[in-house]
């Protein structure tokens, strides 16, 4: 078990950073949990790379529509005002800069805003999916990841060790330990997970951690 927030709680914190009327792309993995977060009627439109515009939370077994999945292949609800487009039009929306934020699950993020999420160490290939298009073209890139690898190695780094997906684009990082902002020389710790110490975070991070005077604790949503 990881320290601090669980996966849904990490997604919940990021979902609360979305602004009214944003068009939000959620990538495969932890990002898709954001559409489960109850953030009220704020006009947020969730976009999936497969052309689904305006979807909601994951549906329970028996209520799902087998013709409808999000970027993670999960069966989701459609919100009023939803529309379906093909893959070319879906990426037209992405490349033309209409995505206010993309949330991506990743392997590594660097203090300079670079990130890596398509190729693991020693592999010949990998999975790019839509991440390169999204990272190059969305107005903002938020990333979401466990703070360390399974064997405890840091994934917030001075420089990415793995091949990057895009350079200098990440503006917000949510992990089980806290909420961070890449600042070039290090990561600004904006909020800390409940029950976690700054020393724990420093020990688990491969770059400088900048700690502000006033450090709020992440409020965990009920449920």
């Amino acid at each position, binding site marked *: 078990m990881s320290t601090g927030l669980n996966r849904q709680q990490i997604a919940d914190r990021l979902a609360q950073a979305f602004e009214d009327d944003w068009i939000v792309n959620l990538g*495969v*993995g932890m990002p898709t949990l954001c559409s489960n977060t109850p953030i009220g009627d704020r006009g947020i439109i969730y976009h*999936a*790379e*497969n*052309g*689904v515009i305006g979807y909601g939370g994951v549906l329970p*077994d028996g209520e799902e*529509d*087998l*013709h*409808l*999945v999000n970027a*993670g*292949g999960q069966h989701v609800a*459609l919100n009023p005002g939803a529309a*379906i*487009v*093909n*893959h*070319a039009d*879906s*990426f037209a929306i*992405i*490349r033309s800069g209409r995505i206010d934020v993309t949330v991506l699950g990743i392997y590594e993020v660097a203090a300079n805003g670079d990130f890596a999420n398509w*190729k*693991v160490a020693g*592999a*010949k*290939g*990998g*999975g*790019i*999916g*839509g*991440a*390169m*298009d*999204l990272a*190059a*073209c969305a107005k903002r890139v938020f990333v979401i990841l466990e703070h360390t690898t399974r064997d405890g190695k840091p994934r917030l780094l001075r420089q990415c060790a793995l*091949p*990057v*997906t*895009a*350079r200098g684009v990440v503006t917000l990082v949510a992990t089980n330990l806290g909420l961070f902002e890449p600042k070039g020389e290090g990561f600004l710790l904006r909020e800390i997970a409940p029950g976690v110490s700054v020393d724990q975070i420093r020990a688990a991070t491969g770059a400088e951690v900048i700690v502000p005077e006033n450090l709020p604790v992440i409020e965990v949503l009920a449920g």
Partner: protein
Amino acid sequence: MARTTKEIASFADAVRDIPDGSVVAFGGFAYPGTPFNLVGALADQGAKNLTLVANSTGGAAQPRLPDIGLLVERGQVRKVICAFTAATRASDVLPFTKYYESGQVEAELVPQGTLAERLRAAGAGIPAFYTPTAVGTELAAGRETRFFHGREYLIEYALPLDYAFVRAFRADTAGNLQFRRSQRNFNPIMAMAAKMTIAEVEEPIMPAGAIDPDEVHTSGIFVQRVVHIPPAPVGIWPGKRAPRAGAKS
């Protein structure tokens, strides 16, 4: 003599004449819109030295559905052009990945949006275009780039297909297709990019004129053969249950 219908009786008949060395694309994103029946028929038909185009290279789920992994295991595949040579979950190991990592089959890894746009370009008679995607990454190393209005873009080329396999919800005898929900995904642009498009269709094939012209997603101009999918277990209906009859909301 004018064609009267594009309906074909069986998947075997629909893929029988596909020659060795063809470039064949499979639509689909996760299960919806994936032409499992046609992929299975191509495995049975046995064409070799194929270049396959698809978003991903198969699934890790059991029981196995016909996918690129199956065609690779049968020695039918020379190369795959895709956005995933590995599973999205690093812990899942795909049959394809093993063959690829050991060098038994080639792959060209393409960002998903670039893959979509290369197919759309082929379908639109555009030989090449520029995209911001992948600039500054390993995938752009050594490749031609160009600046427009101060931003760097990568040149990308059309990806024409010999065959596109698609799965649709409804079709008419003129080859017009309708997709339901996220079934649409790559299917319309693969149909545009292909010399021949073969569709497996969930509802019985309708007479020409039964689909409102405003509600056609892919014109019959792009579709040469349509096959109605028989009920399970003969036909493949992936997911936990068969779609509800009249599921269109």
